[in-house]
């Protein structure tokens, strides 16, 4: 199970890079709203990857 989560975290990082790329590409096509949408998606995907890699301790 741990290996699957490791693989998932790497896929999420790559997915975040893809979303950021789509956001920057949309900027070039003057689709500002689409660009913001993909940048937000990328931020959320990257945040999920961070949480998988370094979850906040529940003992706090």
């Amino acid at each position, binding site marked *: 199970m741990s290996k699957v989560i490791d693989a998932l975290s790497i896929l999420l990082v790559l997915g975040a*890079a893809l979303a950021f*790329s789509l956001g920057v590409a949309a900027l*070039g096509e003057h689709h500002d709203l689409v660009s913001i949408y993909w940048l937000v998606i990328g931020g959320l995907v990257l945040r*999920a990857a961070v*949480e998988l*890699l370094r*979850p906040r301790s529940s003992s706090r």
Partner: protein
Amino acid sequence: MTQLGGVESNARLPSSRARSPLQALRDRANTVLPGAYAWVTTVALPSVQQAAPLLARVAAFGALVALVAAPLFIDERPRVGRALGVYAFIGLSLLSWVALGSGLLQSRGDPLLSALGAVAFMLYALGWGSLRRRGLVPEDGPNVIAGPPLQPRSRPPALVPVVFGVIIASALVPTFLAFRVADMERGLFAHAVAVLTAILVISVGSRAALSLGQRRTLPPSAERLNAAAVPLALLALAFGLGFLWLVVR
């Protein structure tokens, strides 16, 4: 610049006195080659235009001199070498761009060439990091504590460098795409976003790649999944809204 084997800012390497200038350039090829490429593509090409002011040309030539001279001083006088390689080269390149002014924007060359120049500048910056000299190992350092060498507790899987390379390549994609944004304001924003996202992706991605060999330090799988539940739920919501938007539009 404080790691063992690194180029200390105020330390001299005694064994380097016999090196010729050619050997010094060869040993610092990791900075000279990307620096030369970056200089040619982003500084020299705009500066050789007919409309380029004299100051831009002089600054560009000075940047080249600083680039080539830095490795010659790095061993005997590290401070001078660093001042030439980092401050003088970058500063004179900046001065050349400033002197070009609007001419720099009007003479937009090949976006791919500019993007590769930006990557070359990044490699140049990395080259000035703590890279040890050829043939020098940390154990040769004067402050090393004698004793048996410490063995690593575990070796990372062979897949880690591959994953790390793919992550770095994917993080650089927005940087290349930013050069395709023609509009000036959007282009500036695109470059800022590209740099920020590249830093974030490489930072998180390196942790993800290295975690492949460090499972013992991570919490149980269920706790990791629970921690990611909120951003994943928000992600699903965002995808749902996006799909709805596509349908309604």
